[in-house]
């Protein structure tokens, strides 16, 4: 596939890898923000071939991992109501809530459907005018334009039986929250290439400056990720801390202004809870007053649902790179991929699920 295969070329990847080996002289801790990058790192085994000086910490950039328990419980409560068709990206169906996951709700007779695009949820709403169709609008800045478009279209076409359960989160405030933690170990960031495709990278300049960390908007293929790591390592070794764009074929400095405009037409910034991390100020989106008609939390009065995360689960500490999964007392005992306590065990590239596999291999 054009613009995919070239950036998976093992010969080129090995060349960049050898540059990284030549450049690194000291241990460095680098975080890739995005779950998609983590997926690519694990899938291609990039972590196994990097110099031992480089420690990769898998960041919180995966909606499966950071959507708070109480939002999952709200989703489950809404999906369980009569006359509701609950639609979601496939990612969220196996994420455990307090008592069950969306798959279990489906098996109890509720209409839970996987969609690939938020516009498909809208199509379902049009085809089922006597039902309430709810779309689980999770994700980061990349997914927000699509989810905003679904509401915009619903408003344009006067579709009243459509609403969104919104749990949108924003990357830069989470990066700052991690960096300002006294226990922070991360010295350089691979920023999420598709988030930057939408938002651009101007908002990272002050973060790089304030915390003296290199930030590299990076793509998702092995060549991209290795080049991103090379750019971070070069800056660290030279004592620089700048925003430097690796993902030039998709990311522009200003991002995608059309998308940004529609996002801010539909959503406004709000405080958000992150699973395992806690509340981060101004780190998410909520539907604006003007479009409240499309807010499933209001429509189904689930605002009162609160849930605490299982005490046994330390996924938040793990997401911040402060502890390794096997240091958790529940690891491999109460918590396994088929009986996950926390999201880091659900997502196939979640730190705990990955460790679980490798432990079985005796590593």
């Amino acid at each position: 596939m054009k613009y995919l295969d070239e950036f998976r070329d093992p010969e080129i990847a090995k060349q960049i890898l050898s540059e990284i080996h030549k450049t690194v002289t000291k241990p460095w801790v680098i975080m890739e923000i995005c779950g998609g990058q983590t997926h690519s790192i694990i899938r291609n085994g990039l972590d196994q071939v990097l110099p031992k000086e480089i420690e990769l910490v898998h960041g919180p950039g995966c909606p499966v991992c950071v959507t708070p328990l109480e939002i999952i419980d709200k989703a489950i409560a809404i999906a369980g109501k009569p006359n509701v068709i609950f639609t979601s990206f496939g990612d969220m169906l196996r994420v455990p809530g307090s008592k069950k996951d969306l798959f279990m709700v489906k098996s109890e007779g509720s209409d839970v459907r996987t969609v690939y695009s938020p516009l498909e949820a809208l199509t379902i709403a049009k085809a089922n005018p006597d039902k309430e169709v709810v779309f689980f609008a999770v994700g980061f800045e990349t997914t927000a334009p699509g989810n905003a478009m679904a509401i915009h279209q619903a408003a344009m076409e006067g579709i009243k039986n459509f609403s969104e359960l919104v749990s949108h989160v924003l990357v830069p405030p989470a990066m700052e929250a991690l960096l300002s933690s006294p226990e922070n170990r991360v010295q350089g960031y691979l920023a999420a290439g598709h988030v930057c495709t939408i938002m651009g990278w101007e908002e990272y300049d002050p973060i790089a400056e304030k915390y003296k960390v290199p930030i590299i908007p990076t793509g998702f293929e092995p060549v991209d990720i290795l080049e991103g790591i090379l750019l971070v390592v070069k800056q660290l070794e030279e004592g620089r801390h700048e925003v430097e764009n690796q993902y030039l074929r998709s990311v522009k400095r200003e991002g995608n202004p059309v998308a940004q405009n529609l996002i801010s037409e539909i959503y406004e910034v709000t405080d958000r809870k992150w699973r395992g991390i806690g509340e981060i100020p101004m780190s998410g989106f909520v539907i604006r007053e003007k479009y409240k008609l499309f807010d499933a939390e209001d429509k189904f009065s689930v605002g009162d649902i609160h849930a605490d995360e299982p005490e046994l689960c330390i996924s938040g500490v793990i997401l911040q790179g402060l502890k390794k999964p096997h240091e958790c007392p529940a690891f491999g005992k109460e918590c396994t991929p088929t009986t996950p306590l926390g999201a880091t065990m659900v997502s196939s590239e979640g730190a705990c699920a990955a460790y679980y596999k490798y432990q079985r291999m005796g590593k």
Partner: protein
Amino acid sequence: MDHKTIQLAHGAGGQLSNDLIDTLFLPRFANKTLEAMEDQAVLDFPENRLSFSTDTFVVDPIFFPGGNIGELAINGTVNDVAMCGANPLFLSVAFILEEGFPMEDLHQILISMEIAAKRASVTIVTGDTKVVNKGSCDKIFINTTGIGVLDHDLNISAGNLQVGDKIIVSGTLADHGMAVMTSREGLSFQSRVKSDTASLNGLINTMLKVSKNIHALRDPTRGGAATTLNEFARSSNVGISLIEENIPVKPDVKGACEILGIDPLYVANEGKLIAVVSDEDSLNILAAMTNHPLGKDAVIIGEVVSNHPGMVTMKTGLGANRIVDMPVGEQLPRIC
């Protein structure tokens, strides 16, 4: 989380399916034949050795690019019977039809079944039809059961892998699963990915003519090649090491997998087999396969190793090894 009710994943061929079989079914019905956990039962009689297998088909949609539920029901059971080296002879067919199901669709499905049975040289010798209330089943479900005969000297089993054996796959992976997934409602594909549904008994005959040193055979249906290989590794308590760049996937199938974030190794096939064969005969068997129309893309994708027993690993383009685990449940389109 303990499951109080049956989940779809219990039927997806992954970890939960195995748990269900191990904890509920096997303890009730335990016997030596069943415990072998093969796709078919091999039954020894004084005169004959029989292969016996059953399967139920509930695919949605019932018509998909490259086939329909009917030919799938014939090919699927023929393949299960044949994967021990048997020659499939007779099938039973049982239909569960939903009230209101279009006669024209049934007719079309039956024509496909007739053609598929002829191609596989099997005879449908008994059958049953039930009609249930609208909503009690989804359009049409088909069960087929098959019987075949096999030579007394054959011993093809998931438990027979030897260190050094080569792993051959008979062609490109993930065609069927992606054909079905991309024709599902709600995914808006205008795709041309076609199912690979086919009966493989002819291909197996061709292979057995070249060599009897075929240690294991299985068609990687639900759960895909990754599941079959994990089952092999566990049954034989050996490791399996794959080479990523050798895994054959058609470009358009790969495209569909990329868009939906799905790994082709976990996607169902309905006309492919995985053979584990002795190292010394591997090239001869491969050559015979590539001369057969259903094996023209056959390729060696890895080998049996002594380290990491019970596990499957894959060497990536960069020389790293990643674990190819058993899937937990059905693969879902993802955005992350």
